[in-house]
């Protein structure tokens, strides 16, 4: 049987697939189905954003103006760089450069942590400190956000910040999940589990990471650059 040879060639070829190409294609399609589900997840949030932005454009201008474009822009740069390092990780794995793969995964992790760190320290914390938490605790005051208290439609402004915190928060949560998986992949790389014959896990985590990057690519102009 020809499939016996194929199974002998690659130890990672599972018994229910005829060839490594078929296995890789099937796994890829499965991963893309997962990403399609993620599109549905974030899509719902973007739709809520679209409806409320359509209804309350002034609140969107006001809220967006209070967000820092340099910080959001810098974070975008970090995330794009982390996508590059992740893609390089796939390359290193495919050519059998285990050291390069480990360094690429480390760089991706560090850049991602910088992103979340900047977000927490320079964006979320000042907002919480100055009363920007929507709901019962809402009460803008202070140096950066006090001027928001003068805006007429406080309800609509709160909706802007609800969407801001939920969408950027879910995005950051996806990055935290990514960090956990990255640590596992880094540990497995150290165990020499990956190489030219087994690079799909790296590729698929890359798909996840790039997807999270794409979500941010849309979040950034939608929240920070509303004019």
């Amino acid at each position, binding site marked *: 049987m020809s499939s016996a040879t194929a199974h002998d060639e690659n130890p990672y070829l599972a018994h229910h697939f005829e060839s490594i*190409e078929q296995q890789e294609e099937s796994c890829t399609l499965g991963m893309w189905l997962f990403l399609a589900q993620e599109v549905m997840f974030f899509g719902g949030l973007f739709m809520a954003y679209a409806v409320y932005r359509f209804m309350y454009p002034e609140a969107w201008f006001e809220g967006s103006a209070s967000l820092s474009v340099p910080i959001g822009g810098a974070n975008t740069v970090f995330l794009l760089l982390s996508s*590059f390092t992740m893609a390089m990780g796939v390359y290193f794995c495919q050519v059998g450069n285990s050291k390069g793969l480990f360094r690429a995964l480390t760089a991706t992790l560090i850049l991602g942590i910088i992103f979340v760190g900047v977000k927490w320290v320079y964006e979320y914390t000042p907002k919480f400190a100055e009363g920007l938490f929507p709901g019962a605790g809402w009460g803008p005051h202070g140096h950066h956000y006090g001027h928001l208290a003068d805006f007429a439609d406080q309800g609509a402004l709160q909706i802007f910040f609800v969407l801001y915190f939920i969408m950027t928060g879910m995005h950051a949560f996806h990055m935290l999940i990514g960090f956990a998986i990255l640590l596992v992949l880094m540990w497995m790389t150290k165990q020499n589990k990956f190489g030219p014959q087994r690079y799909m896990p790296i590729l698929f985590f890359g798909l996840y990471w790039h997807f999270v990057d*794409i979500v941010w*690519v849309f979040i950034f102009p939608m929240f920070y650059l509303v004019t």
Partner: protein
Amino acid sequence: MSQHHIVQPKTYFTILVLLMVLMGATIGASYIHLGTTYNLLLALFIACCKMSLILMFFMHVKYGSKLTAVFATGGFFWLIIFFTLLFCDYFTRYWNSPVAPSPYGG
């Protein structure tokens, strides 16, 4: 033969540079005042360009099979359906009344 293709670092780096340029364009476009609708469309267009680059090259859709491309674009096609039907609703809600009522009753 879908995933065996090894994309060269040079390609990845070129895409990174393009993404950075488009990021600058995103911020620059926010300073050009074309009116809210056109600024929004421009921002979305640039974001879609960035998304296409990431999808095609970093996520290897360009180097994969057509079936992979169908799965990859399926999610976004669904989003278009969602967006279209949603705004068929919202854009036509106030055709017969003068102003959008506030959800806070005021």
